[in-house]
């Protein structure tokens, strides 16, 4: 038999996919990093233990949670603190937290715990070592924490509606990996199957953090309520995720890692193109899709935001859900390239939120077609960073045009087009976005405006002969070196560049944050400003003692009461 062409519907054009408004509308999917982790842990039958839980009646102390995989163990070392309310800040400039954590490579000795207890609570001001893989901290959701403690202590269960709407008892405010503050470099673990995928260390750390938070709230309720305290109902506990509060620090990441970001987007685009290329769907596949769609409606119903832009997007998304519902009432989605048809329909019928939700949802029935792409999402291509100086000037011009044609004729001196500048403040080295013409920051600008820089390089290249090797140009114009590198990277990373202005007066940094967080598998994006967003992770996920291959994947979609 002739091998079947795997893909006939092409991947979507980067010029469409890589617009900021679309990146800012992405949703989690089968390829999300949290789901990769829970699938793997269930498939490999990981075991979990709690070798220490030494917390006093004020809620101060430490605990250790160990996850044992087939080859190695990883342990979350958690420190609980008694934080005065006036010190509770999600900003990176905070200096104290409700809880602090390190993910330890293996099983820590008492000496390790002692060393970590001197450093982890200090976060950026402390030092960790090569045996630590991540460093993080979390603050309570004060309202929900108090509610759950009080209810349990009174012998009652917490109100599920409140849990659905907040989603978590604690939110992390930074999870540092990859060699930060002395921790092990990614190279130490990059060849290990279980953590070779992007952010698997960080996702494991957060997964274990969620267990710790559940145990801590139960313990604090017990301290308060004594004998009459209720045990938290597991069905309720499952809807307690871990929040995350993310600021601008994350936005430069997707610009600074074009190969990695490309690999995430390209894996999802390839998955979408494969599913769209399926000619006929079985009744079962169509049923899986309908089921997941209904369940995602429930999740979206719990999605709260007070930010005007997200309020508007959510209203459009809710209209989109109704439109999709109406489409499903008339089409059984089994015949005539059903997934391609619904995607084509969505392109004009739905908002970008709805389009991207749908693009993620059509992947759900097809784990066998999609999940293998998980292994393509890490960046293993260090050679892509090395400039090929033999490429002629004309070749680099073409590459720049491919990604930035739209930017070349823009007037980059117009304040509207360059109103903002990215810089790093000397305070905790925090990335910030400022007003170029109102603050003295231009001298400190970070290279986070690839479109403007591409236009500048393109202009300089116009004065050079077509056939001159780019190395000669770079020797005379080192100021364009980063742009030439990015242009050459685009040959292997077609989705590596944002096709939008990252320094314009109207740029919304939360779009960049959301793009990254959606690949983590985050839900319930709740912008607190144009550069600050809260999200929810692992809400609905089975805890370690419940995790199995039947519940390891679709937990992100709440079961709907029939």
């Amino acid at each position, binding site marked *: 038999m002739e091998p079947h062409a795997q893909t006939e519907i092409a991947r979507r054009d980067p010029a469409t996919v890589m617009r900021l408004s679309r990146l800012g509308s992405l949703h989690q999917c089968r390829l999300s990093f949290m789901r990769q982790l829970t699938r793997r842990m269930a498939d490999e039958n990981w075991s979990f233990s709690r070798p220490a839980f030494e917390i006093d009646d004020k809620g101060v102390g430490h605990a250790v949670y160990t996850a044992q995989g087939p080859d190695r163990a990883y342990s979350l070392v958690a420190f609980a603190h008694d934080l005065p*309310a006036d010190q*509770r*800040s*999600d*900003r*990176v*400039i905070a200096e104290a937290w409700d809880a602090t954590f390190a993910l330890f490579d293996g099983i820590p000795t008492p000496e390790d715990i002692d060393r970590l207890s001197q450093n982890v609570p200090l976060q950026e001001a402390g*030092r960790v070592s*090569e045996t630590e893989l991540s460093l993080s901290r979390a*603050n309570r959701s*004060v*309202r929900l924490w108090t509610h759950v403690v009080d209810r349990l202590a009174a012998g009652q269960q917490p109100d599920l509606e409140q849990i659905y709407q907040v989603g978590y008892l604690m939110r992390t405010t930074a999870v540092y990996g990859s*060699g*930060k503050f*002395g*921790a*092990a*470099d990614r190279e130490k673990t990059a060849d290990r199957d279980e953590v070779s995928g992007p952010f698997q260390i960080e996702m494991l750390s957060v997964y274990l953090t969620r267990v710790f938070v559940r145990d801590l709230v139960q313990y604090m309720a017990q301290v308060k309520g004594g004998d009459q305290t209720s045990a938290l109902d597991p069905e309720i506990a499952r809807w307690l995720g871990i929040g995350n509060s993310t*600021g*601008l620090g994350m936005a430069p990441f997707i610009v600074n890692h074009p190969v990695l970001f490309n690999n995430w987007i390209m894996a999802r685009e390839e998955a979408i193109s494969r599913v769209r290329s399926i000619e006929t769907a079985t009744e079962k596949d169509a049923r899986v899709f309908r089921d997941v769609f209904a369940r995602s409606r429930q999740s979206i119903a719990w999605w709260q935001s007070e930010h005007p832009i997200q309020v508007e997007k959510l209203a459009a998304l809710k209209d989109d859900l109704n439109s999709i519902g109406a489409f499903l009432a008339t089409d059984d989605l089994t015949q005539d390239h059903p997934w391609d048809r619904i995607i084509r329909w969505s392109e004009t019928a739905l908002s970008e939120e709805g389009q991207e939700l749908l693009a993620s949802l059509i992947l759900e029935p097809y784990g066998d077609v999609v999940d293998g792409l998980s292994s393509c999402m890490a960046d293993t291509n260090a*050679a892509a*960073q*090395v400039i*090929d*100086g*033999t490429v002629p000037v004309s070749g680099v011009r073409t590459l720049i045009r491919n990604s930035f044609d739209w930017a070349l004729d823009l007037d980059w001196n117009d304040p509207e087009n360059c109103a903002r500048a990215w*810089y*790093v*403040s*000397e*305070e905790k080295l*925090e990335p*910030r*976005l*400022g*007003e170029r013409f109102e*603050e*003295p*920051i231009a*001298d*400190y600008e970070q*290279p986070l405006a690839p479109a403007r820089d591409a236009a500048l390089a393109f202009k300089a290249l116009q004065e050079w002969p077509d056939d001159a*090797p*780019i*190395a000669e140009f*770079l*020797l*005379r114009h*080192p*100021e*364009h*070196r*980063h*742009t*030439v*590198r990015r242009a050459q990277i685009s040959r292997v990373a077609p989705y590596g560049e944002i096709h939008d202005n990252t320094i314009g007066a109207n740029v919304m940094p939360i779009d960049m944050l959301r793009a990254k967080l959606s690949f983590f598998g985050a839900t319930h994006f709740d912008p*607190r*400003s144009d*550069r*600050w967003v809260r999200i929810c992770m692992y809400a609905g996920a089975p805890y370690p003692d419940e995790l199995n291959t039947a519940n390891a994947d679709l937990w992100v979609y709440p079961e709907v009461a029939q």
Partner: protein
Amino acid sequence: MTFSLNEVEATAKRATRGAGYAWGVAEEAAKATRWLSAQGFDGPAILAQLLKREFAPCLERHIPVLQNGVWVGEQDLCPLMTGTAISDSPTVLSQSTISISNLAAPLLLLPFVAAGAKKLGTTVKVSFDGYSAITDGVHLICADCSIDRADHVEITEGGHIQNGRPLQSRAAPNAGAWQVLNSMAHRTYAPATEESRLLGAGSGLSDND
């Protein structure tokens, strides 16, 4: 206390930018410093040595041109600009011996020669003022040495790698040199103001909810 190689790379990049080099060159300096550290050299100290020479404001005087078969500059050559000229066009390594005159911080040339050797899939020998090094891109044979400039450098294809330097996963830079890099890196940070504290990053809303 040791540092991760990621910390070495990040600090080297900021320091090189702070010293006035372009971002793209700072990226090269960062990777080069990391590579030297992985080979067990004090990469940050070698970079600090170069940055203290303050080439960046008049970089054109430190860029190589070919003159009578020798790479020369108006003044001592910058190893970053000379190095990128090699790693950008590694075929120069296999064409004939490269002769370089008056090179600052010559150990910083090694990572670029290594990148070229790796790309060509070959081994390359570097001789500088009585020292020598051989690399295939990943491994390096070179005695510990501290040399702040070389009168004459020769690079030829060939040589054989056996027992390269043991690869390191951590760095323990000289404290003074590390301080030099950090103070140069500091030049890239904008002073914090109350306004930027609020507008530049946060939401201005309470997190105590």
